[in-house]
């Protein structure tokens, strides 16, 4: 089995790495691929709660690399969709608990058993990020249309390129068309021009993202919403389908009145 290992990273914290990892994993699994979502944020584990699997964790990534358990024992199977697994991070350890060699060994054991391995990287550019990116064939860089986030994304892209990663795609998250229309937010073209990297998707700011993380139910498994559509599109593009990059309208209305209001920039 040809496994694609994809690291989801951003540099800056709080821009949506975990949300992206959870939703793309669920989306890929829903399309019939076998997927394992790996939480590489040792010490600040969160992917489990976003995926709603926190109650079923027995062992974690550090247990696996320290040989305290077998890999299969640590993988948490998602019951809502076939072939979706979570490898949770340890909560009581720190980033130093895993060495690059251990990470390489772990990735090698995952390679061949799954179609996709999505690694949720911690924020920052230190060892945690380096471990997460170490074995990845591809990188998804998440950025919001803000100066600080785009700057950090640029730094991360530089580091990934220096490491020889040649498949680097950008996800613009928390995009607000309304603010762009008013000239108060960087639009997608600005971001792609500044970063000179391919954009694989634009996820609109969407209340349903918060609601889904409240429930612990990835969007792709439940709610229909603009963000869910965006994640579906990104998944399709990852799979090589040619889905045009349409700008999502987000929370904005679509009716005649809303259109008129947009025209008048109200």
């Amino acid at each position, binding site marked *: 089995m040809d496994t694609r290992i994809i690291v989801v990273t951003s540099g800056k914290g709080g821009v949506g790495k975990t949300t992206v990892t959870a939703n793309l994993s669920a989306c890929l699994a829903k399309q019939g691929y076998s997927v394992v979502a790996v939480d590489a944020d040792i010490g600040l584990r969160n992917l489990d709660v976003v995926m709603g699997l926190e109650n079923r964790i027995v062992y974690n990534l550090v247990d696996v690399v320290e040989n305290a358990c077998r890999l299969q024992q640590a993988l948490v199977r998602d019951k809502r969709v076939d072939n979706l697994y979570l490898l949770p991070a340890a909560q009581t350890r720190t980033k130093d608990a895993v060495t690059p060699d251990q990470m390489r060994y772990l990735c090698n054991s995952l390679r061949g058993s799954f179609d996709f391995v999505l690694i949720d990287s911690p924020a920052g550019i230190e060892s945690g990020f380096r471990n997460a990116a170490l074995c990845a064939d591809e990188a998804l860089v998440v950025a919001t249309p803000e*100066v600080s986030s785009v*700057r950090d994304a*640029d730094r991360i*892209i530089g580091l990934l390129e220096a490491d020889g990663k040649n498949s680097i795609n950008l996800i613009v998250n928390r995009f607000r068309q309304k603010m*762009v229309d008013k000239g108060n*937010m960087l639009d997608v073209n*600005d971001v792609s021009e500044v970063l000179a990297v391919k954009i694989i998707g634009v996820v609109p700011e969407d209340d349903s993202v918060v609601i889904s993380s409240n429930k612990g139910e990835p969007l792709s498994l439940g709610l229909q919403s603009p963000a869910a559509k965006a994640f579906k599109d990104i998944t399709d593009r990852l799979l090589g389908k040619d889905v045009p990059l349409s700008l999502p309208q987000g929370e904005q209305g679509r009716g005649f009145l809303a259109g008129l209001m947009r025209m008048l*920039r109200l």
Partner: protein
Amino acid sequence: MGFLSRFFKVGNSKQNAKERLQVVLIHDRADISAGMMECLRRDIISVISNYMDISEEGIELELEKDKSSVALVANIPVLRVKRRLEGTPGKEEKIHAEGKKKRSQNRKR
């Protein structure tokens, strides 16, 4: 007037953001590690040495940054310019030159 301007007012903070980002990134991207700078210095020496004798101790090499651009500035004292490329037969005449300045834009990430 307030009513009208509400209709036509378009914010410009986006332009602000873009310009600030571009300036910040020019500087971020020009950050070069000491190791890479040393490699660059060695490469420059080896290339230039094909054409002239230079004073290796006297070389100054740095990235000069101003508000919107970054330049690689090298100050390389030249002791003698070679008449022929190394390895090709022929007479070499001694020519003294000093403090030649070389400037080139650096757009490396």
